[in-house]
C-alpha cells in the first residue's frame, strides 16, 4: 500500500518536475538568453582583434580565439574616455542628489501636510512627467542658452531633474503613504518639529524608497542621450553615451572594438551601483514599512 503510494508520489513529482521545466525553466532560459546576448556580444567584440571581427569565414562570430586588450587600451589612452566617464559620473550624481532632495520635500508636503489642492499638485507633477523629452528639449534649449549654461555640465545637471523629480516624487508619495501616520503624530506630541519628524522618523523609514528613487535617477541620468546630445558640443564635456557615438564613429568608419569597449565600461558603474541595492529596490516596489 505504502509502496503504491510512493510510486504514485514519484509519478506525480516527476510530472510536476516536467511541468516545472516546461512552464518555468524553459521560458526563463529564453528570457535570460535574449536579455544577456547583447551584453555577451558587447563583451566579446570589445576584446576581439580587428582581424577576427570581420572575418566570418575563418572565425566564429560568437567566439574569440585570441583575445586582446588593444581596443580598451586605445579607448582609455588615445581618447578622452576617462574624462567622459568623469563627466557622466559628475552629472549623474549631482542631478540625482538634486532630484532626491526636491522630491523628498515635495512628496512629503503632498502626502502629509493637509493643504488645499494637494492632490491636484500631485497630479500636475505627474502630468509634467508625461511630456516627452523630445518635445521638452526645445523650450529647455532656449532657457539653457539664455542662462549661458550651454556646453557646461550644469546644462544637464539642471535639466535632468525635469523628468527625474516627477517620477521620484510619485514613487516617494507612495512610499510615505505606507508609513503609519500615528508615528508622526506621536513624534509631534513627543516634541518634534516638522523637519525633525522628516529627518528622524520619516526618512529613516523611507530608506528603501529613497534608494530606489536614487537608483532610478542615477540610471536615467547616466544613460540619457537627447539632452546630452543637444546641450553639449565640446568633446571634453561630453557624456559617455553621446561621446562614444560622436567621437568613436569617424565619418562612416565604426570603430567597433572601441565602441563596444566604451559601452561595456560605461554600463559597469550602473550595474555595480544597482547590485549593491537590488534588495532595497525590490522591497520598495513590493513591500511597505513593517513595524
Amino acid at each position: 500500500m505504502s509502496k503504491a503510494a510512493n510510486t504514485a508520489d514519484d509519478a506525480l513529482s516527476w510530472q510536476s518536475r516536467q511541468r516545472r521545466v516546461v512552464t518555468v525553466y524553459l521560458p526563463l532560459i529564453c528570457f535570460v538568453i535574449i536579455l544577456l546576448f547583447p551584453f555577451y556580444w558587447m563583451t566579446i567584440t570589445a576584446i576581439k582583434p580587428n582581424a577576427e571581427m570581420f572575418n566570418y569565414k575563418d572565425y566564429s562570430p560568437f567566439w574569440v580565439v585570441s583575445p586582446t586588450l588593444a581596443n580598451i587600451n586605445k579607448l582609455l589612452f588615445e581618447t578622452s574616455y576617462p574624462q567622459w566617464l568623469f563627466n557622466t559620473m559628475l552629472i549623474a550624481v549631482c542631478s540625482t542628489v538634486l532630484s532626491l532632495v526636491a522630491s523628498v520635500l515635495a512628496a512629503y508636503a503632498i502626502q502629509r501636510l493637509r493643504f488645499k489642492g494637494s492632490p491636484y499638485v500631485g497630479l500636475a507633477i505627474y502630468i509634467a512627467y508625461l511630456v516627452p523629452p523630445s518635445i521638452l528639449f526645445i523650450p529647455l534649449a532656449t532657457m539653457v542658452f539664455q542662462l549661458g549654461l550651454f556646453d557646461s555640465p550644469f546644462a544637464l545637471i539642471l535639466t535632468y531633474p525635469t523628468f527625474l523629480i516627477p517620477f521620484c516624487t510619485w514613487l516617494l508619495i507612495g512610499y510615505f503613504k505606507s508609513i503609519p501616520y500615528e508615528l508622526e503624530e506621536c513624534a509631534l506630541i513627543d516634541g518634534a518639529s516638522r523637519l525633525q519628524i522628516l529627518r528622524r522618523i520619516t526618512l529613516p523609514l523611507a530608506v528603501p524608497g529613497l534608494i530606489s528613487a536614487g537608483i532610478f535617477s542615477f540610471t536615467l541620468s547616466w544613460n540619457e542621450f537627447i539632452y546630452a546630445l543637444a546641450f553639449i558640443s565640446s568633446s571634453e564635456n561630453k557624456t559617455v553615451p553621446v561621446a562614444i557615438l560622436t567621437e568613436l564613429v569617424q565619418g562612416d568608419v565604426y570603430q567597433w572594438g572601441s565602441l563596444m569597449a566604451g559601452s561595456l565600461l560605461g554600463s559597469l558603474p550602473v550595474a555595480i551601483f544597482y547590485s549593491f541595492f537590488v534588495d532595497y529596490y525590490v522591497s520598495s516596489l513590493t513591500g511597505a514599512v513593517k513595524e
Partner: protein
Amino acid sequence: MATVDIRDVRKNFGSTAILHGVSVGIEDGEFVVLVGPSGCGKSTLLRMIAGLENISGGEVAIGGRVVNNVPPKDRDIAMVFQNYALYPHMTVRDNMAFSMTLAKAPKDVIETEVTRAARILGLEQLLDRYPRQLSGGQRQRVAMGRAIVRHPQVFLFDEPLSNLDAKLRVQMRAEIKDLHQRLKTTTIYVTHDQIEAMTMADKIVVMHGGNVEQIGPPLDLYDRPANAFVAGFIGSPAMNLLHGTVQGGAFHAEGGEGSWPLPTGARVSEGQRIIYGFRPEHLRLDGSGVPLVVTLVEPTGSETQVTGRSGKVQIVGAFRERITAQVGETIHVLPDLAQAHLFHRETGQRLDA
C-alpha cells in the same frame, strides 16, 4: 498633574458636525474614561485634547491654561496610540528616550528616567530590542514607558488595548490601573468597551452621536442611568428595555404578554408610553410573574443566562442560582422593582420616582 476642563467643545469636519458642544470637568489625578459606540466622537475629543485636531468651537484647558492654540508638544501631555506607534527603526531605549533627546536633556538624566520607567514596567531586559522583536503586550508597555518618562501632566490613551487578545487585555487593564494608582497622573482613556470603562474609571463619560449622554462614577451609571442609551450601553448582558404603555397601574409591553408591575411611586400617568428597563441579573423566578418561553440557556458556571420570549418581546435573565429550565419550557419571572428603570419614550430621559 493637572485638571482638564473641556468647555462646550465643538468639532466640524467641513459641514459635518462631529461634536455638538461637549463639556467635561476632570479633576487632578482622576482616571476618566470616554466610552461610546464607534463614531460617537470620543477619539476626536481625545485628539483635540492632544492638539492633533483643531478645535472648531469652545475651549480646552489643561491645568487652568487654555490650550486651544498651543501645539501638542507644549501641552505637557503624553499619548498612547491604538497601534502603539512605536518607532520601528529605534530600540526600546531610543523609543522611550526620544522625547527627552528632542528636548536636549542631559544624557545621565535620560538614562535615569528610561531606567526608572523600564523598572516600573518590567522592561529592563528589553531595552536593546527593536519593536518588531516584542510581543503585543510588551509593545503596549513600551508605549506606556514612552509616556511615563516625560512626567506629563496628563496621560491620554486611545483604545490602547483593542489590538490585544482577550486574556492579555484583562492583564494590561489591571497594569494600567495599577500604574495610575502609583503615579496619580490625570488620565483620559478612550474605549468602546464598556467593561474596560467600568473596571478602570473613576469617572465615566458616555458619549453618543457627538453628545455627552452622562458623566459619573461607574456604579452610578450602572445603577441610575440618566437615559435609555446609557442604560442599554453600560452593562453586559445589556439591560432589557421594553417599549410599551402604562395600563391599569401596570406596564404592558408592545407585542408582549402579561403585565409588568410598576415601581412604587413611579410618576407615570395612565396611558403614557414609556420604556421599561431592568437588568438581567435583577430578574427572579416568581410563579405570579410574566410568562416567558425559554429559547436559549447559557450556563457560565457562576451564573446561568436564560433568553426567553414573552410574545414577540425578547428578554434576557441572569440567575446566580442553578436553573433547570429547558428550551421550550415556560417560566414565570418578575424584576426586582427597586432596580427597575423607567424612561421617557420619545426623549429616552429617565423618569424619576
